[in-house]
């Protein structure tokens, strides 16, 4: 049916074109909006795009909600700070520390995952919360991390007008790479197993899926990216202080973004971050009392959970496709003048049988 093939092609090329356009827009952004505040927003937003996508890669696909991803973020951040100081690095050279920071975060994800992934999902969330607090406690008390006053990142000697740009482009690169990785994972057998685990872990295990290695790998990947994001952010901000590096609001914001956009989808976290982060930053600028954003975030979260539980994108897609499917069915009906048996009404008759029944009217 050429109609279907055309629809299929359109369905595939449209998103690709859209994504290409988006990347171009994002790449041109700092050249158009040279105001440092704007690029500031851009960098932080892109960092959130990265972290939200990375979080979704693990939690969205596997169904294990992690409220402790700040651990990986913070580990990457502190590693960068400590390494930059110990190895006396500055300027662009520091960017090469990012993959290392990610690797360190990925490394600690292994023991964490081995402990945390053996329990049911309820308990898993709680354990991630506990790990979060352990990390915060450690950062506040250990001398290597500078204790509760934190540690400083090197400040590069770049021209103040374009100071933000290197950070921006690295952030953009990281965000794009994360999205690409998400796509690759989703299409792979690994991603399939992960999603099967999400739907029915025991059944998946019973069918030969090796659940622990699969979950752990996803966690490690997610941690790797989150660690890199944390390192980038701390380099940009200039210092790592335990309260801000390990901030429960950060975790919640990331989760909210993924939920808002659509948990388990690829574009969802991206959309969520692109919409919510600038909003939060803007609100923080307007309101002197920073706690309003807390209340608003909480309220927004509740609203999303109660009214848009699947997130914006899946709900919109469903609405659009059901509208679209209805119009198609109407057209088919009027053209052929009979009821289409494959109307999607979910009768319990055998498919073979019903097809036969339909044509012998």
């Amino acid at each position, binding site marked *: 049916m050429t109609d279907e093939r055309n629809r299929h092609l359109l369905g595939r090329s449209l998103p690709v074109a859209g994504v290409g356009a988006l990347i171009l827009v994002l790449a041109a952004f700092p050249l158009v909006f040279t105001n440092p505040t704007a690029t500031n927003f851009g960098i932080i937003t892109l960092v959130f795009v990265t972290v939200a996508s990375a979080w979704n890669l693990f939690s969205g696909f596997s169904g294990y909600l992690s409220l402790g991803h700040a651990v990986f973020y913070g580990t990457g951040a502190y590693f960068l700070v400590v390494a930059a100081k110990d190895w006396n690095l500055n300027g662009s050279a520091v960017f090469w520390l990012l993959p290392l920071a990610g690797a360190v975060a990925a490394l600690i994800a292994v023991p964490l995952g081995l402990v945390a992934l053996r329990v049911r999902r309820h308990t898993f969330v709680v354990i991630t919360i506990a790990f979060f607090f352990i990390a915060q406690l450690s950062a506040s008390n250990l001398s290597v991390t500078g204790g509760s006053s934190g540690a400083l990142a090197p400040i590069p000697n770049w021209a103040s007008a374009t100071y933000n740009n290197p950070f921006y482009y690295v952030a953009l690169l990281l965000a794009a790479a994360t999205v690409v990785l998400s796509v690759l994972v989703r299409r792979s*057998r690994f991603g*399939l*197993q992960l*999603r*099967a685990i*999400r*739907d*029915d872990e*025991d*059944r*998946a*295990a*019973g*069918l*030969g*899926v*090796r659940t622990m290695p699969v979950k752990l790998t996803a966690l490690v990947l997610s941690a790797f990216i989150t660690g890199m994001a944390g390192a980038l952010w701390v380099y940009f901000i200039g210092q790592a202080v335990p309260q801000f590096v390990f901030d429960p609001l950060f975790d919640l914001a990331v989760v909210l973004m993924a939920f808002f956009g659509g948990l*388990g989808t690829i574009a969802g976290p991206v959309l969520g971050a692109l919409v919510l982060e600038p909003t939060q930053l803007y609100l923080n600028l307007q309101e002197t009392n920073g706690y309003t954003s807390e209340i608003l975030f909480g309220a927004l979260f509740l609203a999303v959970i109660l009214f848009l539980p699947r997130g914006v994108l899946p709900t919109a897609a469903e609405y659009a496709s059901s509208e679209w499917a209805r119009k198609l069915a109407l057209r088919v009906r009027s053209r052929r003048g009979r009821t289409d048996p*494959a109307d*999607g009404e*979910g*009768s*319990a*008759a*055998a*498919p*073979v*049988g019903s097809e036969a029944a339909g044509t012998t009217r």
Partner: protein
Amino acid sequence: MTATLRAEGVSKAFGGLQALSDCSLTAEAGRITGLIGPNGSGKTTLFNAITGYERIDAGQVFLGDRRITGASPQRVFACGIGRTFQLTRIFPRLTVLENMLVPARRGRSSRQHRERAMELLAFTGINGHAGAPAGTLSFGQRKLLELAYVLVADPAVVLLDEPAGGVNPSLILHIADRIRELNKAGRTFLIVEHNMDFVMGLCHQVTVLDSGTVVASGPPDAVRNNPRVLDAYLGIEADDD
């Protein structure tokens, strides 16, 4: 390449309730064996015990001459035993085809895996829904999907838990036909069912369970007329001793 599945002396208690006492059951290689009994007789528990979803208190389970007592569901699956569930357990958010691709590939390339998946979907008749989320399937279609995906891994022994339960008559015949075809190709079947016509018309051998014990075992006709079986189902008093 099929084998005989044998449970010997299996006992299982849940707290104070003795769900299974000293059950022995044989599903002979290449035959279709039925497992029937009133509600609460322990049929699903026996299934769970055999396939590793429940730990048993006593007894042994053998596949051929291999002891698989207490094996985890993964190991049971790896040994070549597939099973379906009474309340279908599919992956609702994955598409029908993706559901088929979840079971381990066992050395096939991904293309061969896909082709086999589509073959099996066609075999059971739901290939038209291959791209739809499995959650949108009707109950009967889900039963077919479950049947299809346990077959993906080529199990030697297939355990079906109420394959005809809640399914409309024309589909039941369809399912029975498919089972017969698969059996002719050499697969062993053990089927739990309530639908007497289905069981009697399909199975070579029938075992009856009542309150956790085996009360009868034999060809369908013999079992159908067995007074102990009637007693179990209808509460009719057996002849006085």
